[in-house]
């Protein structure tokens, strides 16, 4: 005890000494020592008695407040848009009372949405292309959708110059909100929309190297100019779900387009095996009680791996599927973002697939050819296709290119961003080779013999047990050697992908390459 006391005394003295030196250095007045006997402030312990404890308290609170300030700064730096876009936030109305909503434009500067005043000075939102961009540009009055929702923050804020603000203030008019330039291409959107015509379905066109969304069509569509009057009808109509953006929120059986995934898994497990693969197709494949038929019962005869893929032979792929390692397959599916979140800012639904050791033979065979419980959104399939075209790396799809103020000065510009690698370069090259064969010698032969070479995969996804009811799929890209543009098409209930989806792809590719 005594020793401890002595130590404490020693410590006190060194503490004092250090403080004394500091004071000497700083030429500051020294504080007087022991004030014994001063009335009202008598000392009962040395003045440095609890110095360390007071320092500790101060330090802990300083650290606590440092954390608060860092947290606050981080919150403000990162959350502004998210907060402003929350529909509960009354500040949207405040901004809209000072600024009128900015315009939305295509990538070449065509106006897709603008706020104008009618004869009675009442503001309304005008969409010059009517229903053409209904899902992707969206609407802003009955809640918000599409770019109107994504870019809401930019549209209701203004970055016009101070002198303009002053002039507007004096004139008693609102400030113009910032303009949002999209990646959308009016011409391609038009062609896609015409080609889908009266069919229900979706078309997505993206730029391979950047992930820019050039066109996004979902049918049936609606006229956003009339959204207020047609709203109740749209909401009540559960059968056609017009307001659903089928491109990102429509879940469809992938059908034969899923053979891309099955083929990737097969290649992953043994990159050399496909060279010696052969199968005798009699139009169906049976294991026990489970049976898989080829599309319309066609018999493909003797096929190797490439022709199984090119001709989309269900029997052969069911056979391939039965030989796959299901745990490895589950990993591959996860890597391709099945059952996972997508790097996508538009609202979407997750694709789903079941893959495990406990899958029954029937389920496994169905899954291998893209039937069964498997469901995918067209956007997700487009992203996988884009990754193949981009040598394995997925670029995040995006639709807002830049934000400019009313004088055309850039406020914010969005750059292409890689999400990461979905497959190796060799795997991407292998799949490109297979998909080229689909065009050259398989189900997408309507794309053969063009000025460009395309690659892709068709699908005819059966969606109920009645034979012949199938969605027509095509997903692919061009040119095959040096891909620029990626297209994914689904036409609901049309029939075979080769007959109904491939011609649409051809028209879109034609438009894209003629525009260049």
């Amino acid at each position, binding site marked *: 005890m005594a020793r401890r006391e002595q130590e404490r005394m020693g410590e006190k003295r060194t503490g004092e000494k250090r403080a004394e030196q500091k004071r000497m250095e700083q030429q*500051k007045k020294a504080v007087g020592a022991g004030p014994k006997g001063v009335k009202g402030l008598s000392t*009962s312990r040395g003045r440095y008695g609890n110095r360390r404890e007071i320092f500790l308290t101060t330090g802990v*609170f300083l650290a606590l407040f440092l954390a608060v300030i860092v947290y606050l700064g981080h919150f403000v730096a990162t959350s502004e848009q998210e907060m402003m876009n929350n529909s509960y936030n009354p*500040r949207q109305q405040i901004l809209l009372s000072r600024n009128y909503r900015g315009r939305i434009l295509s990538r070449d500067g065509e106006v897709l949405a603008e706020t104008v005043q009618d004869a009675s000075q009442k503001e309304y939102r005008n969409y010059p292309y009517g229903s053409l961009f209904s899902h992707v540009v969206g609407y802003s009055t009955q809640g918000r959708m599409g770019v109107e929702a994504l870019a809401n923050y930019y549209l209701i804020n203004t970055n016009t110059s101070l002198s303009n603000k002053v002039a507007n203030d004096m004139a008693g008019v609102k400030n113009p909100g910032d303009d949002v330039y999209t990646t959308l291409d009016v011409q391609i959107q038009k062609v896609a929309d015409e080609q889908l015509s009266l069919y229900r379905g979706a078309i997505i066109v993206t730029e391979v190297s950047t992930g820019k969304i050039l066109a996004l069509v979902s049918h049936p569509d609606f006229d956003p100019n009339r959204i207020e009057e047609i709203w109740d009808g749209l909401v009540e109509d559960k059968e056609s779900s017009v307001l659903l953006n089928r491109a990102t929120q429509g879940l469809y059986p992938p059908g034969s387009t899923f053979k891309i995934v099955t083929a990737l898994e097969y290649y992953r497990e043994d990159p050399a095996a496909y060279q010696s693969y052969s199968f005798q197709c009699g139009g169906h494949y049976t294991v026990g009680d489970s049976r898989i038929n080829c599309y319309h019962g066609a018999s493909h005869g003797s096929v190797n791996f490439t022709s199984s893929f090119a001709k989309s032979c269900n029997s052969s792929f069911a056979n391939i599927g039965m030989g796959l390692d299901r745990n490895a397959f589950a990993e591959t599916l996860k890597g391709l973002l099945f059952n996972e979140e997508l790097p996508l800012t538009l609202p979407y639904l997750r694709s789903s697939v079941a893959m495990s050791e406990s899958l029954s033979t029937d389920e496994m065979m169905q899954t291998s050819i893209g039937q069964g419980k498997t469901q995918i959104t067209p956007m997700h399939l487009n992203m996988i296709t884009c990754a193949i075209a981009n040598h394995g790396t997925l670029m995040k799809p995006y639709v807002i290119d830049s934000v400019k103020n009313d004088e055309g000065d850039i406020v914010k510009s969005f750059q292409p961003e890689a999400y990461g690698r979905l497959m190796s370069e060799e795997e991407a090259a292998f799949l490109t080779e297979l998909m080229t064969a689909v065009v050259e010698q398989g189900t997408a032969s309507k794309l053969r013999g063009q000025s460009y070479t395309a690659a892709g995969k068709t699908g005819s996804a059966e969606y109920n047990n009645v034979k012949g009811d199938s969605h027509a799929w095509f997903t692919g890209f061009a040119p095959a050697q040096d891909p620029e543009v990626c297209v994914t098409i689904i036409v609901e209930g049309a029939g075979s992908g080769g007959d109904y989806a491939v011609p649409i792809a051809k028209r879109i590719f034609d438009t894209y390459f003629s525009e260049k």
Partner: protein
Amino acid sequence: MQEYFIELSKYFITFFMVLYTAAGFYVFRYREESARRTVYLVQSGMMFAVQALCFLTLALDSGDIQYLFFFAFVQIFMFAAVMMVTLIYERANRLLLNNMCMLLGVGFCMISRMSFQRAIRQYVIVLVSLTISYLIGRIRFFKKLTWAYAAAGIVLLSIVLILGEVSRGSKISFTVGGVTFQPSEFVKILFLFFLAAALWEDVSLGRIALTALIAGIHVVILVVSKDLGSALIFFSCFVLVVFIASRNYLYLLGGLCGGSAAAVAAYFLFSHVQNRVLAWRDPWTYIDKQGYQIAHSLFAVSGGGWFGMGLLRGDPSAIPLVEADFIFSSVCEELGVIFGICVILVCVSSFVMIMEIALRIHDRFYQMIVYGIGVMYIFQIFLTVGGGIKFIPMTGVTLPFVSYGGSSCMTSMIMFFIIQGIYIRLQQAEGRAQRPPSRARKDPPSGAKRTVKTNAREDRRENG
């Protein structure tokens, strides 16, 4: 022109506030008040500039001239406070005084922007508080009234528990003759005196256990009244004061563990605690009910951005109870987050100053009081700021000096003036102790001489 002024004044307000705050930390370079005078002068200038710009913006944007009159009254108060304190109170601590005035000014500005009537009420309360605080600051306190302090505190809290009015589910106030009191605020001071009186000469285990029992009664009454914020403040203050008195880290550890256990128990026992935690973890899912306040507070903070939306350009009334518990969020919204961070830092600089004063006090009773006020003050700021930005669950306490509320404001002022009173006596004691060199502790002779010399220089400066 007006638009130019309003737009630009935003940046100037931030700039002056940053300078003010920086000065508030720069003073610590100097140890003595006399050497800090230039810095304080800068602070006064900045304070005037910030307030002038704020009220001018209010007057211009609203077209309402009464803001300018109010500004004049606020300036009269500031002048009176500074004059009174520096003339009558002589060697008061100017940093604490400046910070108090700065925060009061920010509060006046925000409150008048929301409700002019309330701003005037607050102004009157501040004037009354100034007088009361001044008187209390001059009193020498009794060190032997331990149990009287405790009894008074417990009785006051019990009265509220039994007779108090229920507002927003908590019983925290009662009204006498049209004036609403929130006694838990005043009991804070009694509680501190109780702690200091109980522990200043005896820190045996028995004494600490007895103190803990009495403190526990305070806390339990507050928890039952559902005044969670105050309960937390009382508890943490108790733990820290015991720690500083006993210098025993085990008490600190025990206090932390006991506090955590009590918090967990409270979570399972009380539904309102669960609601607060729910609102903290995910205000967005429960935005219609439990999360409403916090979500709107976050909207406000993020809406302001770094430089704020400008005075009168935000929507503070969207947050329920904004003028009391969420004033910080509305400051961030209209004056900007940089300004808000400055407000935090001004509070922190006051806290550091209080701790520095505590370091220099030799009398354990007074040291514990100063230290206790310091930790109570800073902990309350942590609770209200942290709660408003979703850093911690919301507890519903005020931001001292800034928030609207008479009891809170008066208590904070009394606390600051108690420190001023102690500080002045401390300086007198230090001065007296220094003059006769023989009285100095066994310092080496050269050191003693230097002390005298610097002391003389100090006197000259005061004369000049």
